[in-house]
């Protein structure tokens, strides 16, 4: 005992130091440890957002960004996903497939994202998807390309928030044949996008009893189109046009000069006029023509409460332009896909009880199990039907008529009009 007395004194000092140290440690732990524990339970869910900030897709990317930010705000305001906030991690892919693949790698291995999401242009999707599959990163694309449903990609790539070009194009055929004419001349850019329209529409239109009387392919470098117009047969009742890029304004202007006041019916896709003001010089010739729209740019007379709230959340006015700048026209026909895809990621994570990267396969299985998606705030564009085997969603398409410089919806297709035979069953692929 006596030997221990001095030691006890020493121990007392040490004990005091230890106590202080432990106290400080406990104090630190009281702030740091919960943080560590939170990292397991309530750290944000990170969604890698592959966005076209530069390159040819920049005008789409700007609006995809705004829409996604608005969707994430809504999700977080409602409590997040499984009690965790959602954080978008944007990276510019430069609208380039090589950079797109690099960005996906960054999401998976550096940014530690739970999933990747967002891109539009098909070549970026196709260039990135192999890396997403190899890195086992769920990759939710908003591209409208047929590449997902065609079976070209992999089990980790899904397109649950926007319909694909094949279903869009084939759904137009009944309306065109029943309302505009039976003899169609197709004018399209001479590359894959145009070839998809040529092949899918002509097959669907001929099945409706119509005839494609000419297929005029325009070389991608063309800047003037007048020399192609004499190839349009005289008995043409409808011109189906899908020109893209800046040349579309010249195309429409020259088509107007060629035909004057007596022209066949015109039917086109809004893709090339997304983010373009319909009052732009040269577009007057489109007055009275028909357009496919993925989602009507102009607020319609029978606008749903969902569309109204969605516009307000994203900051789009009744003319489809930014509420802060009427000249900043949105890509309204496509960008809803970001909103809806993020809501599907949320639903999938909640259904699978997603906690972290180990649950990625369960998340994909949960999304694959989805079928009907009712119209509502999660799906303001309209009801959808998801095909878990092909990883592709199907939904209503809209046809609008240009009247008085705005587009008024004249037809809504059924979902059944957009369906086609499965070309792949991704659920048979292993994870």
């Amino acid at each position: 005992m006596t030997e221990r007395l001095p030691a006890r004194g020493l121990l007392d000092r040490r004990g005091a130091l230890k106590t202080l140290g432990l106290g400080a440690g406990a104090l630190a732990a009281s702030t740091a440890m919960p943080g560590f524990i939170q990292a397991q339970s309530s750290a944000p869910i990170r969604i890698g957002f592959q966005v076209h900030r530069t390159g040819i897709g920049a005008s789409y990317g700007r609006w995809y960004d705004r829409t996604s930010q608005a969707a994430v705000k809504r999700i977080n305001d409602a409590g997040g996903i499984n009690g965790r906030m959602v954080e978008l991690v944007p990276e510019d892919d430069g609208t380039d497939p090589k950079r797109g693949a690099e960005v996906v790698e960054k999401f998976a291995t550096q940014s530690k994202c739970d999933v990747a999401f967002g891109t539009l242009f098909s070549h970026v999707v196709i260039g990135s998807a192999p890396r997403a599959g190899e890195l086992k990163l769920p990759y939710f694309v908003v591209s409208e390309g047929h590449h997902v449903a065609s079976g070209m990609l992999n089990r980790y790539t899904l397109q649950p928030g926007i319909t694909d070009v094949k279903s869009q194009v084939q759904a137009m055929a009944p309306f065109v044949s029943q309302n505009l004419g039976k003899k169609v001349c197709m004018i399209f850019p001479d590359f894959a996008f145009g070839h998809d329209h040529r092949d899918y529409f002509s097959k669907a239109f001929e099945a409706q009893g119509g005839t494609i009387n000419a297929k005029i392919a325009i070389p991608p470098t063309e800047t003037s189109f007048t020399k192609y117009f004499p190839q349009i047969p005289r008995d043409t009742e409808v011109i189906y046009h899908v020109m893209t890029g800046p040349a579309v304004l010249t195309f429409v202007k020259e088509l107007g000069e060629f035909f004057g006041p007596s022209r066949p019916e015109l039917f086109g896709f809004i893709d090339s006029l997304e983010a373009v003001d319909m009052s732009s010089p040269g577009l007057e010739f489109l007055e009275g023509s028909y357009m496919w729209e993925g989602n009507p740019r102009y607020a319609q007379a029978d606008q749903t409460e969902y569309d109204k709230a969605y516009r307000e959340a994203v900051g789009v006015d009744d003319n489809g332009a930014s509420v802060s700048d009427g000249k900043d026209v949105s890509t309204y026909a496509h960008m809803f896909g970001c909103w809806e895809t993020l809501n599907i990621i949320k639903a999938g994570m909640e259904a699978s009880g997603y906690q972290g990267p180990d649950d990625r396969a369960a998340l994909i299985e949960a999304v694959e199990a989805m079928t009907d998606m009712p119209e509502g705030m999660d799906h303001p564009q309209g009801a959808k039907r998801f095909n878990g085997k092909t990883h592709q969603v199907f939904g209503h398409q809209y046809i609008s008529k240009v009247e008085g410089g705005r587009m008024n919806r004249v037809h809504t297709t059924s979902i059944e009009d957009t369906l086609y035979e499965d070309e792949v069953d991704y659920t048979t692929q292993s994870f």
Partner: protein
Amino acid sequence: MGRGLVLHLCTIALLAAAFFVLPAYHSGNLARIMVLAIYAMGYNLAFGYTGLLSLGHALFFAAGMYGLSLAMTHLAIPALPALGLALVAAGVVAGITGALALRTRGVAFMIVTLMFAQAGYLTALYFSEWTRGEEGFVIPQAMRNIAGIDLSGETGRYFAALFLFAVVLLLIGALVRAPFGRTLIAIRENEARATMLGYDVQRLKWIALVVSGMISGLAGAAYALLFGYAGASFAAVPYSIFPLLYVLLGGAGTTLGPLIGAVFMFYLIDLSSGLTDAYMLVAGVVLVALTLFLPQGILGTLRKRGLPWLP
């Protein structure tokens, strides 16, 4: 063993070690950078050593890429023979291009090669039934293996890229030390004098362009094989400019300059894009500054200022 060869072997050893040291993101980047460096090394043979300022090398890169990927996808040819086909495709395309373009020189050569590349790009778009044009297509993962090595896995991909990089580096290192390489440098320095000394300058330039095109095609094929995608965007004008930038940055006429340039450009874009959306502006300013202050590139300047032995 010369100092140049030692440097090359050390570089290869360092790159091999890097896989085990670097985080996954950076080792993945390095695999891609090595493929791009192969492309730039091919370009360097034409531009840096022979003085042929081509603006059409994307044609050769794409010839290799499509040579491999079309053979694998449409003809179900395995990866290794497809790689051989890619080399043949790039060599033939470079041979035909060289036979015509080398009738010109200087600015005219730049324009003619640019036009050839543009024609190649449009051809890829036109035959979209096979190439899927600007969309491109995926090379099935199951086919991406050689001798049982899965090239879609991180390890297989990295060491396949390193193997190809090492082969090309050692080949170019040997080539430029050989009389053939010396003659190319002589042509670059003074073509009239080389002609007067009796060299068949036209034939040597053609051979240099064909070898350069085949190495570029090898890089294109390697990209498709290792990253699983082929598309027409790789045949477009920017992909003719990139190797020029890598070579100018790293040092034209240096064997390791293309690697240094590719690393520099890759991380310049990657890091600056994390800071600002105007990252291309940042990249542009840095490139202008480098051109002003290091006109011979990084290794070119080092060679001039104290390391004259740099290969």
